[in-house]
């Protein structure tokens, strides 16, 4: 925006207020992360003396070593990665396919399909009926409960459909004249053209899946093989500052024979870092796409 500036005392005060408050925001946002990072790399016993702020005082990798050595944590990270990758692939493909069909103006079921999806944005069966449904489908204590229920969401569907509607018809028209089937047109022409919007929803689905813990808690908590990283972190958090959690007990037992110690705070910090790092890695990509995704989401029928 090209604004003509009138430099006066008032404007200088505004500059000061703006910069000070933004710097305050940056500090308040980053400090908890940096502090946690410092604690995770600091010797656990030393941390409990307090005074760790932005940098480790007694550098140690023992926190990471002891956590990553646990089969439970290693396995949970595999499950987290697995659910994230599979959900992202399935969701993106399915959403694109359904969106393509309802973008076709002459499709007989266009209105019906759109209506049934849009209505799901307003109704909610609730916790208990959904739980019983999942159970009767045999999806409790089952990995696929992470992937199947959320396959196509109404919001993502609208976003992709809006994008496809914006593509010129001529692109698919010639293929249709040449006698290409609908699936072929979708696969060869529409899907590649939708890359930007699909990247947007893929990233959102990936982040949502990586961050989810409630489905593990509700449906898969009886099976340790299906635990996810977020759920493990949540359990550590819930056992708060006591050594009651099974993971905490196991870790302190493992540390007992060595010169190392482990504390609940150190475990929480280290787990937090492990869980957050993947988000930070995809963050530049996320940032590239999310503003785009938000503006697309605002476009309604």
């Amino acid at each position: 925006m090209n604004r003509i500036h009138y430099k006066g005392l008032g404007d200088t005060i505004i500059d000061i207020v703006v910069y000070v408050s933004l710097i305050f925001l940056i500090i308040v946002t980053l400090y908890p992360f940096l502090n946690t990072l410092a604690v995770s790399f600091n010797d656990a016993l030393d941390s409990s003396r307090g005074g760790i702020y932005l940098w480790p005082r007694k550098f140690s990798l023992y926190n990471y070593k002891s956590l990553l050595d646990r089969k439970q944590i290693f396995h949970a990270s595999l499950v987290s990665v697995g659910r994230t990758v599979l959900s992202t692939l399935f969701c993106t493909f399915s959403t694109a396919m359904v969106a393509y069909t309802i973008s076709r103006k002459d499709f007989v079921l266009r209105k019906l399909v759109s209506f049934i999806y849009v209505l799901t944005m307003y109704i909610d069966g609730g916790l208990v009926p959904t739980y019983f449904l999942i159970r009767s489908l045999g999806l409790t204590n089952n990995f696929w409960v992470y992937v199947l229920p959320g396959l196509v969401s109404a919001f993502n569907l609208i976003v992709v459909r809006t994008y496809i509607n914006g593509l010129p018809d001529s692109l698919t028209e010639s293929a249709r004249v040449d006698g290409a089937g609908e699936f072929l047109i979708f696969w060869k022409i529409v899907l590649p053209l939708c890359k930007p919007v699909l990247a947007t929803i893929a990233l959102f689905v990936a982040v949502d899946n990586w961050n989810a813990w409630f489905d593990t808690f509700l449906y898969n908590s009886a099976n340790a093989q299906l635990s996810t990283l977020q759920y493990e972190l949540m359990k550590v958090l819930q056992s708060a500052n006591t050594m009651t959690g099974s993971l905490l007990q196991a870790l302190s037992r493992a540390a007992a024979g060595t010169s190392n110690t482990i504390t609940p705070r150190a475990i929480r910090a280290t787990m937090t870092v492990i869980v957050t790092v993947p988000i930070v890695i995809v963050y530049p990509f996320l940032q590239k796409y999310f503003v785009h995704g938000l503006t697309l989401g605002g476009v309604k029928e």
Partner: protein
Amino acid sequence: MNTSITLPRRHNKLWDKIKRQKALILMSVPFLVHIIIFKYVPIWGWLMAFQNYWPGKGLFQQTWVGFENFRLLFKDVVFYQVLRNTLAMSIIKLVMGTVASIALALAINEVRAVKFKKTAQTISYLPHFISWVVAANLVRDALSTDGGIINQVLMSLRIIKEPIMFLGIPKMFWWIIGISHVWKEVGWGAIIYLAAIAGIDPALYEAAVIDGAGRLKQMWYITLPSIRPTISILLIMNMGYLMSSGFEQQYLLQNGRVIDYARVFAIYELDYGIKMMRYSFATAVGIFKSVVSLILVFAANQIAKRWGQEGLM
């Protein structure tokens, strides 16, 4: 006479169309079945609220109790506590979140150093993408009595003499929820206002400058009035979500000491329903919440439409 001829032909046409669009149907109908199973079948389960549901028996072999579960619900003091907590936290989050996001958008808009602007924005969005599990961890650490940064700062400023156990004070819980919500979502919330600000006609500012308006006056008389429609539409739309004040945040930050102020609908359903195996009661809670939410969403849409804005539906 005409109709008797066109009807069968129309029917044939439709049938032809279906046959022609076999591929499109195959590409969408499996997902239609999927969404019906996962989103609509649970609504069928609402029948449970009118029964004394016991797992192991079919839905129609249960004892029917009519509105008994709803009667119990409306008689329960805890229900009114849950309703109060939900509405209070929703409103606190909505007001604090909106004010903070608008303030941030205005501040970012005043920055002309491009690099600093980009950095501030990038950092402010980051917490939106982390899970509440992580965020709750960070909040607990920051508020801890054992070297938590908030207590440290307050003590070094001599505002307090000894650490305060913030998360143990019932009256403070709502505000902790509000402030941690702002911490996590302020940057994300500001995006939409920044987009609205970007759409303001620069000629308005030029005219204001000629009239001698400083930046504060430009903000007050041009920027804020120009984004007012965006602010009101977002406020109204969010009214529809008053019954869902979030769940993860409260669940992960609560503890026994503050539970009377932390309990929201989902926690109520879990603790007073599922954990006590009162499945029918928990379903009744869910129905109450869903129905009221639905009414609020539609009311919000109607109000928004009356305001001359496009609603969600």
